[in-house]
């Protein structure tokens, strides 16, 4: 790594063969849940949409371990799901708490469980999803040369580029073309050219990176400036829509 970023202890295990990784911090979810339950008597963890991309079963188990459903009365609340299919998946995984089935999902409090959204920011909660991918290759192009479909970006000087295997099929909205920024080698790097289905290209200025260096889309707890909230705000969508949209081929890795 040439990056100057502080690397969390779990990073080594993330440098596996997975092309794209969403690390889900279940300890953060448990802590967020406990704080929210103290604040709101009727707080119920919303597990709809596969817990907004975090994995409904893993989140449910973490919440149960953190005291969801324990005791009587207010503390014994269960979970919210969207439909019978989601309920059946939780039942099949051995989750026995009461389930509320409703279309009214995705509230601000739901987002806060996952450490995103305005309420999470106000309460200082920890984001649970961290999306990253390794640099696949680097190249240097000359001034005047262009990048990606339609050549919507042209280098104005000699530029170093990094190819990262996250595209719109992974939830990097095409609207991020020439707009979004991704953390790599100690700084935010602009996405240059169009976001493709499977890859983006980052412009590095004079910085050198190595194949395998980790590009972080959002959610690193050491780097609050690259939150899912910030990423979504640049594209006009909520953080919960961002995490829900992280595609199925992004490998989930749950950390307890």
């Amino acid at each position, binding site marked *: 790594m040439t990056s100057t970023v502080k690397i969390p202890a779990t990073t080594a295990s993330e440098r596996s063969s997975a092309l794209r990784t969403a690390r889900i911090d279940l300890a953060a979810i448990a802590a967020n849940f406990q704080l929210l339950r103290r604040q709101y008597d009727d707080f119920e963890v919303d597990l709809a*949409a596969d817990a907004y991309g975090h994995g409904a079963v893993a989140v449910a188990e973490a919440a149960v371990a953190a005291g969801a459903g324990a005791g009587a009365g207010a503390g014994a609340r269960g979970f919210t799901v969207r439909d019978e299919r989601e309920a059946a998946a939780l039942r099949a995984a051995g989750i026995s708490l009461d389930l509320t089935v409703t279309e009214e999902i*995705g509230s601000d409090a739901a987002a806060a469980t996952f450490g995103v959204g305005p309420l999470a920011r106000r309460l200082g909660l920890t984001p649970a999803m961290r999306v990253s991918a390794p640099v696949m290759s680097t190249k240097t*192009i000359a001034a005047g040369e262009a990048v*990606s479909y339609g050549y919507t970006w042209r280098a104005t000087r000699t530029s170093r580029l990094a190819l990262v295997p996250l595209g*719109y099929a992974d*939830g990097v909205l095409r609207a991020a073309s020439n707009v979004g920024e991704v953390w790599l080698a100690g700084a935010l790097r602009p996405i240059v050219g169009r976001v493709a289905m499977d890859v983006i290209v980052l412009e590095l200025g004079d910085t050198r990176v190595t194949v395998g260096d980790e590009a972080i889309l959002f959610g690193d707890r050491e780097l609050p400036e690259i939150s899912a909230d910030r990423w979504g705000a640049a594209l006009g969508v909520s953080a919960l829509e961002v995490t829900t949209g992280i595609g199925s081929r992004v490998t989930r890795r749950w950390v307890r």
Partner: protein
Amino acid sequence: MTSPAPVRATVLATVDLDAYRRNLALIRDRIAPAELMVMVKANAYGHGLLPVARAAVGAGIRFIGVLDAESGLALREDGIGSDVRMFAWLFGPQEDYRRLIDADIDLGISHLHQLERIATAAVGAGRPARLHLKIDTGLHRNGASIDEWPVFVERALELQATGLVEVFAAWTHIAEASDAEDTLAIERFDRALALAQTLGARFSLRHLAASAAGFSRPDARFDVVRVGAFTYGIAPGSGIGPMSLGLEPVLSLTAEVTALTTANGKSLARLAVGYADGLPSAAGGRCTVLVAGVQCVLVSVFAGYSLIDITAVRVAVGDSAELFGAGRGGGNTLQSWADALKTIGEELVAHLNVRVSRRYLDELSTQ
């Protein structure tokens, strides 16, 4: 096809495999004598990897582009045999190439470091790794640069002489920024091929074009054309819709009306589709849906549902609304949605959540 759970699907993606096969036939006819490689990356553009790949193989397709190891291995495990070439080209720095060689998956590569790792993985594999060497002709994503190309080819040929790899194909990827830019890219590709030939390379296949260039430019077709979007009836946009090319949209998205309500004097209906299903919230206020034969404005998209304005139509709970589909009966196509959202159809279908039920129309297999 069987559905995984006996649960009523209130949001449904219907995939018309007959339309898909008709698109394949039209494209193959158009690009002949070049062969068609169908692209099934990203869960077959959201259409469902296995059903789409099976339909393609059933229609006689012999080249499938899978992008990554997982998709290729899934298709091999599904029983698609070695008479169908499987082409993958996006690999992690720590990729386990041996399992790909063992599964007879062709490897599209761009870098010396990949070559060396593949050669190491091929030792003792019992067959050479089949390589497609990529040259960067201006897109500046992957692909060996023109400066790197001779060394890359020479090293591949050295490894071929040891029996560890087979230098099978050369390929590139073009930007479709303009005909003139694409012409430049084709010229660069031709020069790279000629240079490789002087170094001793004898490529069995050359491929450059994807949907649009493959469809319109004979000089872009070479031996194989890699087509994704057009096989699903997804057109480039900017005035070019699928029907003008003779292609049929393959995927339709429908959702059930779950409740009726009023707000600010407007009659509204709830649809059982939201951003939890991958429907972009940006569609609120920009797109329409077809209910009871009438176009209704999609007012807003929430996590678990959407609201539509039904002031102009009589609607009942349980009615089905079509968001986009084949464009029949006054309905929308994916193209019209993509235009309204200033994006491309591929993004909308690739973003559809995997949990949305897919239903497959397949007259050919059920006859």
